[in-house]
């Protein structure tokens, strides 16, 4: 997953210009532009926090996307050194996603969290097996968008498809990690999504030069925190390496399970 491309996509959808965001977090727009193009590493934690606030995202999500632990974790590790040793144990055993899910479940029952568990927006809830299309082969992103909208429960597919294509022209949504996230804000539609897994890589340019194998197409009726969160979820899927698992899925339900399982760890 390409952090810069994701940042740009989230920024464009938040309706904030490059210069405006740079001014808000106190960096030069040239520097921010270099970050968005991946020529500079992701900014420091406090700047990331400021960016998250500007983009209406939970801070932890942006830290996650930037592959940083963030002050909550690093502070905890500093206070309780044993926590770091526990991580070391996990690393030594090379525990995978499934094993970690079991540990999470254990922690959840043994030490229930006292904080109210804020429900985050989930892509899995927007997708039904009908909205998952496997083995898609086409020559460009416009056609892929048409296939995606053909599976969306909508009365005006053409309008939705054109809105997505128009949004895509404004700023490409290939975010790396094999993912492209075409999307649009279309007033009056019900929030919906479609997941395409390509039979052969889609011939479009990706910021990290990885072949594009998955498209998650998202349509929401309004801009705002929820829209941003859903988009960030797409990037998190890419960040967690969902592409390989999705390519292995043989049924729409199987692909949907991959999404739901990864999202449960957000």
């Amino acid at each position, binding site marked *: 997953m390409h952090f810069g491309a994701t940042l740009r996509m989230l920024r464009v959808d938040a309706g904030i210009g490059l210069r405006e965001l740079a001014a808000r977090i106190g960096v030069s727009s040239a520097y921010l532009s270099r970050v968005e193009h991946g020529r500079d590493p992701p900014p420091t934690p406090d700047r990331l926090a400021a960016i998250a606030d500007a983009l209406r995202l939970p801070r932890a999500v942006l830290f996650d996307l930037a592959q940083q632990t963030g002050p909550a974790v690093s502070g905890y590790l500093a206070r309780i050194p044993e926590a770091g040793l526990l991580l070391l144990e996990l690393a030594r055993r090379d525990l995978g996603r499934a094993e970690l899910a079991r540990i999470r479940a254990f922690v959840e029952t043994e030490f229930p969290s006292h904080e109210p568990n804020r429900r985050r927006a989930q892509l899995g809830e927007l997708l039904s097996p009908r909205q998952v299309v496997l083995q898609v082969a086409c*020559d460009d992103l416009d*056609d892929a968008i048409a*296939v995606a909208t*053909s599976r969306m429960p909508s009365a005006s597919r053409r309008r*939705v*498809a054109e809105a997505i294509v128009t949004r895509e*022209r404004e700023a490409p949504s290939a975010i790396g990690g094999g993912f492209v996230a075409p999307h649009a804000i279309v007033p009056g539609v019900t929030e919906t999504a479609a997941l395409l897994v390509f039979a052969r890589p889609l011939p479009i340019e990706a910021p990290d030069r990885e072949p594009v194998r998955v498209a998650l197409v998202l349509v929401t009726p309004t801009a705002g925190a929820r829209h941003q969160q859903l988009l960030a979820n797409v990037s998190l899927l890419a960040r967690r390496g969902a592409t390989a698992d999705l390519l292995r899925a043989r049924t729409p339900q199987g692909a949907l399970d991959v999404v739901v399982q990864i999202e449960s760890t957000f």
Partner: protein
Amino acid sequence: MAIIHDPLTRFIAQAVAILLLSRALGLLARRIGQPLVVAEIAAGILLGPSLFGLIAPETYAVVFEPTSLGLLGLVSQLGLILFMFLVGLELDPGLLAGRAHSSVAISHTSIIVPFGLGAAIAPWLHSTLAPEGVSLLPFTLFLGAAMSVTAFPVLARILSERRLVRSRVGAITIACAAVDDVTAWCLLAFVVATARATGASSAVITTLCSAAYVLVMFFLVRPLLGRIAARVGSREALTQNLVAVVLLCLLLSSWTTELLGIHGLFGAFLFGAVLPKQGGLAHALAEKLEDVVLVVLLPLFFAFSGVRTQIGLVDSPQEWLMCGVIVLVACAGKFGGSTIAARVTGMSWRESSAIGVLMNTRGLMELVVLNIGLELGVISPTLFTMMVIMALVTTFVTSPLLQRIYPAEQLAKDLIGAGDSLRVPTPTRRFATLVCVANERSGPGLVTIGEALRGPDRAEPTYALHLMSPTDRASFFVGQAPEEVSARILAPALERARALSVAIKPISFVSSDPAADICGVAGAKGIDLMLLGWHKPLLGQSLLGGIVHDVLDAAPCDVGVFIDRGLVHVRRVLVPFVGGQHDDAALAVAQRLLVAGAADITVLQVESGTATPGPGVAAVERLREQGGGRVTLRVVEHASPAEAALTESRAQYDLLVVGLGPQWGLAHRRLGVHAERLIDGASCSVLVTHAGPERRARLDPSHDALERGEA
């Protein structure tokens, strides 16, 4: 004064004073509902000898020292060049499309009438107000041109501020102002050429060269720019190099027109006008330039005109009378001319006078013209001052008058009535075809028909859709990659497409509900005609059952079901016709075949006596008119239309296009027990057409009922 000690500090002091005052007045203007430009013109006049020079002559003499005006003039000229470029950029030819008729009528009247009136009072003004040695002809021409100016940019701003752009009045005014602008500038270029020229012949040469230059820009430079613009898809791609290239071309164009003997501003405007408006280029450029030009450079120009405006020059009652006459004539010509022309083209008095008021706005374009006139020495400083007052008055009265004539409530009403038809029209829609390829055999024939249906520009999209059934999956993952399977099935279709040099875009994916997915993709792509292959159904004998049945039920567009009997080309086509929706769809296919150019069509109109001809007979006439000699109409009387069509179809046709209807023995039902006579009996390939919901809604719904009754 020590703080002003060299040209640069003086210039900065001037700029500071100008920006401060015009911004401050701008705030005031907004209060009273005036456009910013009124404040800027006023600020310029106040900073000039008319006020600043009167109350503080010493300070004025230091700040606006006569020798320093050259620098101010140069910078404001540069600002104007950029500004005229922006004006050209805002001029979208798309605005004219569809409204050309009334717009051209109104805008030409709104130029000719004020021009005429201006020219009429010219002899009277010439004796007292023309500078020494200026002959009557250039003076008259200039006065006429100056009277007929409309301020396109100010108008655009007023319209967008009052949310009038989408209304009928707004749309027509914008288009008119655009035509006006172009015409007035051509006129002015001619006036400048005449005034500068030593004789009549050099004026003609200048005019001819200018015309040639305009042609070169439109037919050589514009396509070239189009290619550049096509590369600049997104805003991010507008590099500084590209901006540099565009600005360089702008300067060159400006220079060229200056060399040709018409004003450099003309070249800037022309270059802006030919820059393609599609794609992000024009928009991104405008965004980059606008702030600096509008906020910094333009006020300098206003101040520069203001310094040259000396209200003190108009002192005698007689001169004020002349000034009044000029304002009156200007308003009478522009307002009166446009209003009457609009009324004649069939608009209401209210709308017409709103257009008149809007067109009467002179704004800063008038100032641009006047400054050119003053530089040329065609008008005297006194007349210049009078005309500046006229420009200020006509711009000032626009907003309050418009509020009177066209209040917001009225606007709201009109906007509801206006609907979509007045939107900037999209370019003519392309005819998009979706070919559904189910197996290797059905592809080539479908592609052949798809090819025959394509229009002459050959650029219309044709999609080939192949849906894989999920039950195929076992074979996918054991040994055979899925894309290979879909590629194998699409291969014959793509091969035929290559042979016919058709560009086809293949799409394939796994589907458990092919009918829904076919219709879904057609909906998302805005397909006009879907072509399906024929599948032998498992149950019954109906050829139109199964998936085809489901597709016909849900299709968002016309559908053609194709029965291939070795179709290689589409030359001779038979369209049997009785009337009804699906027959109309068959005629639509025939019409597309005509447009594409290769086919000869025979329409067999069957009158059976029992059924009266449907309402679609007029469509046959239209088709005949359109096709010229390539459409033959044969009228026969036969008890059974299907038998008549079958008999005719034996005569060497490539393709039989027939509507899905009981008259042809074809019915839209899931399970048929009777074989479809026409399909079985015909020896050539058959395309069975089914009208989409739009066509069905357009045509008489009673036929729908008739059909259902039979089926």
